[in-house]
Structure formats: structure tokens, C-alpha cells
């Protein structure tokens, strides 16, 4: 990335307190014997986000990426592990406690249609978080209007209802709601997946602009590596609740060191027929197994049933994350992973 604040914070991330720190997060759904025996939805996930940094959380459905977002926001209590915001442990804090202490953690959800209450005006929706922060009356309304303008919407939209806006405009409103309290960290849970291509580009550009202008830190949850690559500095690749690979987004995108990252990257089609034909040939030659064909072993690497490189050790031993050529990959055979 070439943007100034991002570059600066990436450097200082090691010395400064991270904006968001996630350590050994485990989330299990349900209770009872059955739930305890099933693999957890999130299995010992750790990563940091530096102030002003964007970390992309990538994975397919069932990877647990949205669950991590919910755990960070306090919508899903973690089974174990810690979540720290600016060094303060917020893991066990109730949502009500959070509202007073950590007003600078906010969220933008995927579905722009159900994320706005259709019975309330845009103004009411935007003023709600402000009122809880103690900003009231005309001042709150003024902030709401300014918030709308900052996401490229007219200030008089405060008097209208969500049904009067298109999907892209609603997503702008959702972003305005997240930013109206000047948070430092925003969880973006698939904020553009429900949008058409041209609208998606608008919203991605808007997010990039806001990040650069305000020095926001984003936890950017997405299933599309291309989108993550555009907006993030670092990326975390998840598979079945475990981190497969993490590192600077360019390194992970161009030279992935985990077979799953390779499979994911190779499967994303590019809009150039000749290049896509070459990628397809390479992917088919690599010999990845069919998705969901067999259940992985409980002790080893979850990607074993689909992995062309898998050996006995992969079945018995869960590989730890280790540094391999600029990225951290959880693979026993990271050195042997073929180039894209």
C-alpha cells in the first residue's frame, strides 16, 4: 500500500500497543457433550491489528470469519482466549459496559437491507449511538448530518427512511452509523458482498478514503481475496476455524506458502480469458481435493482431505504457524508449496 498513514503504522506496530489484540481465541457453539466433542467454530486464533492498519480476514463459508467478528464485538461470548482493545481486556465485558468504556469499536454488516431498521429514519438511526455517548439534541443531529456528508450522501437524508435508498446508499448509511462516534477500530463484516460490482467499487473506495483520512483500523472480513488485497495491509487466512496463513497481503497473494491459500487464490477467476485459462490449467494440475469430501482428522491439519501435499505427519500433528519466506504458514510442507 502506498498510503501514508498505513505505511507509518505498519512500521511502528511492533512498538505501539495494538489497536486490537486477539489471543488464542476459541469459540464453541452450543452446550452439552455433543458440542464439547465437535471441533470448535474458532480454534486458537491469534492476531493483532495496529492503529490505522487494515487486516483482512479471509475464508470460505464455515471458516469462522464472521464468528471472530462477533466475538470481537461481544455479540458471541468466546469460550476462551482474550480480546484486547488498545491494551484493555474487553473479552468478558458486556455490551452495556462496552458502550461506556470502549466507544471506539464499531461495526458495518454485510446485508445493507437488514442492518437498518426500516421503521426509523436515517436521522434516528444515526443519533442512537450518539445519544448513548451523551451527545444530545441539535448537536447530535448536526453530527448525523455531517456523518452523512462524509460518506457522500446529502445531509437532508436524515429525514428519510431506509426503503428510499439503494443497497449501496444503505451501506454508506451503515458506514456513517459506524463512524458517527469517531471510533478507532471498525469491524467490517463482508461490507461489499451483497453489492453489485460498480457499487462495490464505490464503497471500497469510500472505505479506503475514510481509513486514510481518519487513520482507522479495520478488521475486514471477506470471502474474496481480491477485495481483501485491495483494502488490507495484512491478511489472515482461515479454514475451519484455524489460521492457515497470515502475513503482508502482497506476500500472501503473490507467493502463498500454505496449500489452502494456493487453492483459494487459484480458484478465484480473473476477468482476462487468457490469464484465467493458464490459472485454471495450473489449478487443475495441482490436484486439490473436492471441497467437503471427507471430514478432517481431529488432531491434524484440517486441510488434509483436500491437500495434494498431505503426508502422515499432517494427519497426526497439527502444524504450528511458522515464518516461511515472508509469511507465516501453518503447514508442515510450506517449503514445498508450488508457486501460483
Amino acid at each position, binding site marked *: *500500500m502506498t498510503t501514508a498513514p498505513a505505511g507509518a503504522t505498519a512500521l511502528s506496530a511492533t512498538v505501539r500497543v495494538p489497536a486490537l489484540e486477539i489471543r488464542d481465541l476459541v469459540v464453541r457453539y452450543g452446550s452439552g457433550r455433543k458440542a464439547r466433542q465437535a471441533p470448535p467454530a474458532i480454534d486458537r486464533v491469534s492476531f493483532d491489528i495496529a492503529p490505522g492498519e487494515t487486516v483482512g480476514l479471509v475464508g470460505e463459508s464455515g471458516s469462522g470469519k464472521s464468528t471472530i467478528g462477533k466475538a470481537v*464485538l461481544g*455479540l458471541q461470548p468466546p469460550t476462551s482466549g482474550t480480546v484486547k482493545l488498545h491494551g484493555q481486556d474487553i473479552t468478558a465485558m458486556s455490551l452495556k459496559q462496552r*458502550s461506556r468504556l470502549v466507544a471506539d469499536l464499531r461495526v458495518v454488516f454485510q446485508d445493507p437491507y437488514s442492518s437498518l431498521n426500516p421503521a426509523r429514519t436515517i436521522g434516528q438511526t444515526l443519533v442512537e449511538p450518539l445519544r448513548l455517548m451523551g451527545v444530545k439534541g441539535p448537536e447530535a443531529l448536526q453530527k448525523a448530518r455531517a456523518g452523512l456528508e462524509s460518506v457522500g450522501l446529502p445531509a437532508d437524508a436524515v429525514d428519510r427512511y431506509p426503503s428510499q435508498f439503494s443497497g449501496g446508499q444503505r451501506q454508506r448509511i451503515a458506514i456513517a452509523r459506524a463512524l458517527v462516534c469517531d471510533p478507532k477500530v471498525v469491524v467490517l463484516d463482508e461490507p461489499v458482498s451483497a453489492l453489485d460490482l460498480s457499487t462495490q467499487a464505490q464503497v471500497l473506495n469510500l472505505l479506503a478514503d475514510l481509513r486514510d483520512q481518519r487513520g482507522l483500523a479495520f478488521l475486514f472480513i471477506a470471502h474474496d481475496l481480491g477485495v481483501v*488485497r485491495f483494502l488490507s495491509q495484512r491478511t489472515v487466512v482461515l479454514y475451519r476455524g484455524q489460521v492457515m496463513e497470515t502475513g503482508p497481503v502482497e506476500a500472501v497473494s503473490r507467493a502463498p506458502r500454505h496449500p489452502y491459500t494456493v487453492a483459494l487464490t487459484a480458484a478465484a477467476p480473473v476477468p482476462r480469458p487468457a490469464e484465467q485459462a493458464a490459472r485454471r490449467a495450473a489449478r487443475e494440475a495441482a490436484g486439490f481435493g473436492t471441497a*467437503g*469430501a471427507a471430514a478432517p482428522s481431529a488432531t491434524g491439519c484440517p486441510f488434509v482431505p483436500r491437500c495434494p501435499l498431505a503426508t502422515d505427519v499432517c494427519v497426526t500433528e497439527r502444524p504450528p504457524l511458522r515464518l516461511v519466506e515472508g509469511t507465516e504458514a501453518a503447514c508442515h510442507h510450506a517449503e514445498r508449496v508450488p508457486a501460483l
Partner: protein
Amino acid sequence: MSVLPLDAADEVATEPVPPARRRRGLPGFLRRPGGVFGAAWLTFVIVASLTASLWRPFEPGQQDTANRLALPSAEHWLGTDPLGRDLLSRIFSAGSLPLLSSALMLVVAFGIGLPLALIAAERGRRVERVISRVTEVFLALPATILLLALIGVIGNRLYPVMAVLGVLISAAVYRVLLGVAQSVRQRLYVDAARVNGLGSLRVNLVHVLPSMATVVAVQAAQLFGIGLLIVAGLAFLGFGPGEPEPSWGFMIQDASGYIYTSPWLMVPTGLVLALTVVAANELADALAGKAAAARGTGRRRRPLRRAVAAAAVPAGAPADPAAVLEVRDLTVSVDDGPDLVTGVSFSLRKGEVLGLVGESGCGKTMTARSLMGLLPDGVSVTGGSIRWRGRELAGLSEAEIDRVRGREIAMISQEPMVALDPMFSIATQLVGPIRRFRGVGRSEAKRIAAELLRNVGIVDAQRVLKSYPHQLSGGMAQRVCIALALTGEPELLVADEPTTALDVTVQAEILSLLRALVRDTGLSVVIVSHDLGVVADICDSVAVMYAGEVVEAGTAAAVLDEPAHPYTMALLGANPHVPEGEPVPERLASIAGTVPPPGSWPTGCRFATRCRFVQEKCTVPFPVLPAHGEGSVLCTRVDELSREHAVWEPEHAGDEIASPLAPPAPVAGVSS
């Protein structure tokens, strides 16, 4: 006095209506005749009953011995009873007790059921289970008989009895409202409010309850009717206010004794009671919007004017002799409404894969569906021709096109998980069409089914055959859908966003499967997609659609590598995928605004309002120009743009914030 199932709630839209819309006129339920009748009659009965002592012509106990069992007259409007008492006065004097005690029952039932439902929906599974178990027990208690037992113990005291009934019924109220509360709580705006730190009580009051208001109203109206029937039933059995106090139930019981001599006595009381219950139920239906459902499906009715066009293939249209499918000037319209697709033309050869690509609302799905005559209700082909292997498909009757469907043209859809019948096993769903299409016996059909499943890459075909759709993953379900589409050995496959709902690695597998099928069987495919990557992967040729028309067409390589139309350029620029060896762009190219909805397309170029290269001449109609060899482009400036090497540049950093958009336009509901 049966306790009716609370059925209306299943169909109630729980989406709260924005107040602005409400204020604009009458509330929705008052626009339906049932709702008007219900509200009017209930208001009348309630007012007339509560004020009966002020206006009634006779005291309810006053006997007119000369006029026993009289028919209606000027003096006694509704006639008299066996003791010569005035029926009108008695009916309305009796009204307030059932009305008020039913209201009491409602207050108790909702006072218990609603908070429990909100708590259970909020506190999660463990709390919900405990409450639900208890309510299940309550639901299984025989309410009527328990009420009689209660009366046997405490005597004929109607208000406590109805309050106890309210407690029993609260279990049913809880059950219905729990489902609604849970679905409302799943809406993201509830989560967003919680992240904002809104307290539990306020989340429920501000965000959850308003969305449940309609269901609560429907339930209340229905239960009110039930309450009235129960009070009347109790009085009928003699558990009402004793003589000489009037009560509806006892008056009917009284009348039943005179049915031989004076059948009229049955009518006034019965009618008032029945009308009041009908009114409550009609009000409930109107609130639930159920009258709309009664419009009838009529889904098989075909508008006559659809049988147009056909024969006249426009002169000069280069009929491709090798084409199996030839679509010319296809127009699809909402009946008595705007056009959704206009003048779409394309052709397809054997073994060719054509992509229809564009954003939502561009008409690509409508175009694909019209190939099979599967347009939604109220939408039809109103012009042009669809020539399939020399035969005209536009204007065929439902029976005629049924012979084409499955046998010659098959379809796979966007949502594989719901495209299969959830009630039948995969084997049953495959065997039926195989027997129908191939005329084989059951065991042979089963063998073919297993073979088809293996052909679409399912290894454990036998296990999948025994499975039901909900036991399959999305990718597996789409493979089964493809196998199903292949049962009739079709020559054309229409695939409507076949991989949109799937993960990217599964998408790659499905696309590989489709490509193998095309290679091995010579299948032709029309694939609808919004993803240019998918088009680049599988399509030989592509038609880019915008606002109901094809703006650029040609081979996939030509259109994607050297786009001629600004819209295609913009779509490619908005795609975040980075070509190999190029740096990640700082910003993406974007298109201001949104696709204009059908009916508000600009004249001339429909993209003109959003195009960066727009000029005066773009706003007047112009013809389609040839491009990319056999392809076409719909841009009057295409040559100038090509000379200037025009590029749809990415935005600059900060542009999005610096330039507020045009005021938002209302969005129409029509989408493809």
C-alpha cells in the same frame, strides 16, 4: 368452543412499515373490505354494548306478556323472547360481559406470552428451552375441560375464569410470538444497536417490538373472537350470568327450545354473535394482509398478447446457419407495465457457451428465463423471436413448451439448496424424469441415476441417491441439480448464476464440471453471471447487458481484453482482481449512481447518465454498430473513444468523500 390454531401469523410480514407510508393514507388493513367491515362492526358492537343502558328501548328484564315470541315489529325491532322481553335491548345489554371478559383474557395472555417470548428470544437457547417445555405442557392441557373444572370449584365467576383461560392461552401466544421475536432479533439492525450499547429493554422496545406489532395485532384479533365464542359457549352450558340477566349463550340455548315453533328466535342473537366473531377474524386477516394472498396464483395463465412476433425475423438479420439458438429483438415486459428487456439479440452454436453478464436489474435473468417460458407471473415476452433449432419458442402454449423443457432445454438455478424438492429423496427426484424422458423401468432408471451422479463428479453416488436435499452441501446440491438437468439429455443448458451462492473453490469445481460436459457432450450453454471472472473462465462469447439491452457482444477474449463500450470498461475497472505483474491500484474505477430501474430508462444511450464520456449526441437514439468481428456495440462514440484510447480511469484517493453523490432516487422494486 374450539381453540383455533393461530395460523395467521405464519404469513404476516413482520417488516414494520415506515411511519411515513402509514401517514400517507388509511392504514393498510382499512383498505381491504374485510378490514373495514371488521373494524366498523366491532366498533359498533363495543360502543352499542357499553352504552346499552343509555339507549335501550326497554329494560332487559321488562316483560311484555302480550307480545311473547314476537317477530320484529316497529316496537320490538328484533322481536321478543318467550317471556316477551325485547331482544334488541337484551342482546346489547348482554354484550359488555363477553367483550370485556375476552379483553381481559387478551390482556392476561399477552401480558404473559409477549414478555416470555421476548426474554426467550434474547436469552438464548437454554432459557428458551425451559420456557418452551413449560408452555408445551400448558398447550397439552385440555383448556375447555379445565375451565369447567375451575367453574366447578370457584363457581360461575366469569372474569377469573377468563383470566385463567388467558394464562392457558398465553402458551399459544408465546409459541407464535417466539418465532417472530427470534426472526426479528436475527436482523442485523438489532445487532448494530447492541454494539452501540443500547440496553436490553430499549433494544426490545425500539427495535424488536415495533416489528412484531402486526403479528400481535393479528393474534389479538383472532383470540378476541375465540374468547367471545368461549364466553358464549359457557353461558350456553349454563355457566353464565344466571336468569334474568341476559347472556348471548343462554339466549341461544333458550332459542333452541323453541326451534319448532319460533325459529326466528335463533336469528338475532346468533347473528350478532357470529358477526362479531367474523368481524374479529376478518380484521385479523386484513391486518395480516391475507386478502392479498387470495388473489389466487393464476400462475399458469398466459397472457394472450404473448403470442406475437414470431415469424417476422427482421430482414437483414444475419441468420447464422450454424446457430442452434437464435434470439432476435427479444422484448420482455411487465403486463401493463414497463419493459424489462428490449431488443436483445444473440445466437448460439452447438457446444458454445454464451455469457449474459451485467449488474442486477439489467434483465439478464429475464432474458435467460424467457428461453424456457419460465417468466414470473405478470411478466411475458411481448416481442421478438426465440428460434430454437428452427422452431419458434416465443408464443408457444404451456403444453407445447413443456415438451421442450427438460428434453431439449434444461435449466440450473442460483440456489441449489432450494432448487431440489425437500420432501423427496434424490433417487426419487432423478428416477421420475429419467423414466419419463427415456421410457425405461424403475431399476434401469435407478442405474442411470447413479451413472449420472458419477458423471457429475459424485463419487459415492449410492449414498447421495438415498439422501435428502437438506443433507447435501451447496456444491453437492448443485452437482445433483446438474445431473437432474441432464436426465432428459438436453442440448441447451440455461444456467442462471449457477455458482453465485457457492464458495470460490466449489465454484471452480462446478465450472470445471460444466466445461467437461460441454466438451464431452456438445452441450450448448447460456450462463447468466455478474462475475466477469466466471465469464472469462467458461464463456466462448459474451453479451454485456445494461438496463435491459445488450450494450456489447462478441467473443469473450475480444470483449474482456479490448472492451469497446464504456460500461464494459467500467465493470472491468471496478473489478478488484489484479492482473498478474501489475500493482494493486490505489483506488478502483467506479460508476456513479445506480442502474436506472425499468420504466425510467433515458432515451438514447441508457448508460448516458452515468457515463464519463457522455456527449450531447448520446441522448438521441442510435443504431447498434458491428464490433469484435461478429459482435456488436451499442455506443455512438465507439470510434472516437477507440481513437482516443479512452480508459475508464480509477478514482483518485479522496474523491469519494470530496464529491457527495446526487440526491438519492427512489428505488423501484423490479429486479431481474
